[in-house]
């Protein structure tokens, strides 16, 4: 466990090293980046193997030091089953992201420096137990995202990057107002998560603090109607950045809702339950319908992310154990599957065909020219539509199960979303990989063969999606243990400890 904070430091040191990496060869920079990412993954796996949750499942302190006594902020890192799950996801996405950016050669050193700076922020958010520290890491993650998209992106990159940065910053402004209010109304002496959750602001104040915190974080999770940054941002971003955006950055938002907004305002949860659940389910349906009519392959995946994150948000609002469990599971699962889909579309297809237009791809006979890609997309598509055997199935099932009791109508609508997911996935699958025989074949020239990093990354992600789908008990056990801890008990409908 004690190795977890080193993921942050490793990423920071890695970012600095890679920025000033000597020599002219790009290969060594890539190898170095892969080394840092794999290092972070090994640190996480080491921690995961040693992980022994406390009997009540609460956060295990990893580091704690006095930082700014003037406002009562400490440098306090801690982890429980939920943070560990998301740290694991982050280090997996980091490793695969490096593999999928193997073809980048434009300003390579800066690319990896910003990449690992972003990751350091993400690891930091997942491991912070002090809300000031959490907010600092949350903001550290914003600026690198902007540059990753604006410099290395494709379609409309400057627009997409600025939109993403401003949405994130407005979200974090709302969070900051909420945090300061929670800090002040609990006596203004501490930012410690456990302390603030124990004291809590007066119920009347919680009623407005909660929506500020929840919406502020949910903007980054792509909650409808604040999701519009997500499709444009994902489309504009270079492959590795869209993998990180969909894979981990959107999870920052959902994690913030679960870890900060809900424990801080236990008395306001039920009052806001229906409004937020409605927004989540609208997001599920809207994302799915929007994905069904896109012409750009990456927009399909972008909107499907909005839809899938809707499930995570819906799970959070159920306030039941099953729903919350499903929500965290969905964060993990969507991180893996969306990463896979963006890798296939952005790296394997777009970098070779130079188009993402579905009607153009239709005539390219990709199945015959890139059978592996077709197979991989088929598997990823099945996983994305929630096929049993993949991680997405368990997550969405658990969310639906949890939401049935508090709001059956919303649960039914969300279930329609699962069907729609099958619809848009099959649509792109048919258009791109299995078009009608009579469509004019245009591309016959051989495409560049797939390279080993792409193959490794793809197989790695598929293996994880399958493994978690078949063996969910381990991960579910971590999540369940953490959800039953005194800190999180209000979120699963239990009373205050």
């Amino acid at each position, binding site marked *: 466990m004690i190795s977890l904070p080193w993921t942050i430091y490793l990423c920071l040191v890695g970012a600095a090293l890679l920025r000033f990496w000597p020599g002219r060869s790009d290969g060594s920079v890539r190898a170095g980046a892969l080394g840092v990412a794999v290092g972070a993954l090994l640190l996480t796996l080491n921690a995961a193997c040693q992980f022994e949750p406390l009997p009540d499942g609460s956060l295990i302190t990893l580091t704690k030091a006095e*930082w*700014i*006594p*003037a*406002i009562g902020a400490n440098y306090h890192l801690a982890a429980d089953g939920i943070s560990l799950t998301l740290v694991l996801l982050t280090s997996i996405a980091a490793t695969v992201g490096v593999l999928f950016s193997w073809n980048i050669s434009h300003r390579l050193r800066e690319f990896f420096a910003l990449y690992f700076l972003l990751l350091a922020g993400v690891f930091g958010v997942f491991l912070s137990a002090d809300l*000031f520290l959490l*907010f*600092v890491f949350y*903001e*550290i993650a*914003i*600026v690198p995202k*902007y*540059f990753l998209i*604006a*410099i290395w992106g494709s379609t409309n990159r*400057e627009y997409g990057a*600025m939109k993403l*940065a*401003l949405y994130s*910053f*407005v979200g*974090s*402004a709302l969070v*900051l*107002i909420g945090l*300061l*209010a929670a*800090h*002040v*109304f609990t006596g*203004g002496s501490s930012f410690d998560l456990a302390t603030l959750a124990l004291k809590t602001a007066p119920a009347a104040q919680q009623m407005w603090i909660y929506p500020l915190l929840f919406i502020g974080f949910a903007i980054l999770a792509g909650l409808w109607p604040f999701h519009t940054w997500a499709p444009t941002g994902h489309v504009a971003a270079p492959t590795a950045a869209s993998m990180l955006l969909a894979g981990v950055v959107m999870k920052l938002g959902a994690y913030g809702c679960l870890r900060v907004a809900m424990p801080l305002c236990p008395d306001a949860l039920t009052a806001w339950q229906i409004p937020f659940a409605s927004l989540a389910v609208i997001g599920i349906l809207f994302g799915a319908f929007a994905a069904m009519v896109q012409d750009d392959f990456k927009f399909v995946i972008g909107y499907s992310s909005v839809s899938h994150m809707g499930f995570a948000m819906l799970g959070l609002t159920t306030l039941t154990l099953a729903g919350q469990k499903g929500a965290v599971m969905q964060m993990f699962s969507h991180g893996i599957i969306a990463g896979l889909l963006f890798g296939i579309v952005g790296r394997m297809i777009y970098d070779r065909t130079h188009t993402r237009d579905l009607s153009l791809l239709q005539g390219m006979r990709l199945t015959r020219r890139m059978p592996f890609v077709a197979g991989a997309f088929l598997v990823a598509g099945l996983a994305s539509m929630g096929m049993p055997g993949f991680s997405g199935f368990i997550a969405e099932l658990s969310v639906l199960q949890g939401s049935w009791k508090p709001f059956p109508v919303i649960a039914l609508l969300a279930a329609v979303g699962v069907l729609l997911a099958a619809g848009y996935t099959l649509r792109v699958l048919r258009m791109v990989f299995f078009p009608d025989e009579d469509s004019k074949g245009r591309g016959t020239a051989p495409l560049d063969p797939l390279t080993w990093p792409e193959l490794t990354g793809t197989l790695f992600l598929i293996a994880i999606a399958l493994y978690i789908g078949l063996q969910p008990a381990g991960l579910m056990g971590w999540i369940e243990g953490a959800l039953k801890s005194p800190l999180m008990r209000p979120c699963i409908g239990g009373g205050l400890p």
Partner: protein
Amino acid sequence: MNYSLLIQGHLTELTLICCALIVLIVDRLVMVRSWPSHRYPVAAVLTASGCGIAMCGKFQADEAIAAMTASVAILSLGEKFTKQVGEYFLLLLVAAAGLVFMVHADDLLNAFLGLETASLSFYVLVALDRKRAEAVQAGFKYFLYGGVSAACLLYGLSLIYGLTGSLNFAECTQAFAGMPPSPIAYVAAVMIVVGFAFKLAAAPFHLWAPDVYRHSATPVAAFIASASKIGGVYLLARVVGAFHREAIVPAIVAVSVMSLILGNLAAISQRSLTRLLAFSAVAHAGYVLVGLCGASDQPIPMGALFYYAVTYAIATAGAFGLVMVLRRDTGSDNLEGLNGLNQRSPALALLLAIFVLSLAGIPPLAGFFGKFYVFASVLRGGSSLAIGVTSLAILMSAVSLYYYLQVLKRVFVLPQKDEAQAPPQVSRATMILLTALALATFLAGLYPQGLLRSLAPPL
């Protein structure tokens, strides 16, 4: 009267004045005749070391002012805009001495005298570059606005004297403590806030700032934007602390809200880096004033405001250092000149990024903690007015990210205009200074307690 005590109390000012005289004498009597080409370095080194001596002791507002003066003196080496070297450094030091005197003053009239000493030096400094008509015009504009603001402030002070019979801070605080807010107190409050709003470039009294920032020599603009802000914020906080809080808070809220909105929105459309910094200064004046909007039973958050002013001054001085580099490189301060700076000089690009992101309030840079601490301290009083103003300030800081990122977009994203452009020329002294300022911004943000601990609030 015990003169040794008097000297001890004003040691910093005396050091600065003596240093000013030494600089003038050395420059006029020795340097002009013997080594004319070395006038700038010698005067700058003398000024900086004078400020260095003045900085001995606990790091408080006066030391911060001396430190910023030393930075500006070093910065002046990069832009030798005038032949009146001795006079230029003399004016810098006299202005610094005025600011320090103002900070030390225990009495409103003394503080006013210090403020005017500094302001008069500023007017001359801005217009010192006589050959450029814009500089003279900016100086004249600044003088007119400054004169009006001084009149307002003095009128406000006279009303305070009428209400309390004293101009001593402590006595005023006591006299106002039990007094119900009278119409005269409101008039005085408005006059004082108007006077300070001019000095701090808060909207709607900011009109001099864009011209002065743009047309005065870069080091002078850096000086006005940094050292004078520290002194101004410090004095305003003390005056508000001594004044009738209920009467003055509405006026402060009004000016703060206007500055936040106008500064941030107007900065978006600027095409010159100096004008952008001027409107960002208007916005930052708004954030500072938020710190004074707290409930009336709450102490003034002196530590938070001081931290904010100092870190803002450091980041702004650094940004003006880059304005100077940009001006030498392209001959103007247009933002286009920054295009592709990262390809030509990654080090300068990184420095600019640190200063700009600190102004934008991105952690772990000092600007973030400054804002955070000011907001947190104001909210502690729990008044709903403070919650409203703070929320507006936080949301407007999200807007501000847009124009700060526009600057960084030019530096890091856009390609440079012509490929063969040489990297900008930067002297070693400027580079060391900018690096030191950037390090200070970074470290103060990473470990704010260090700077906070040094300030024992005098209130």
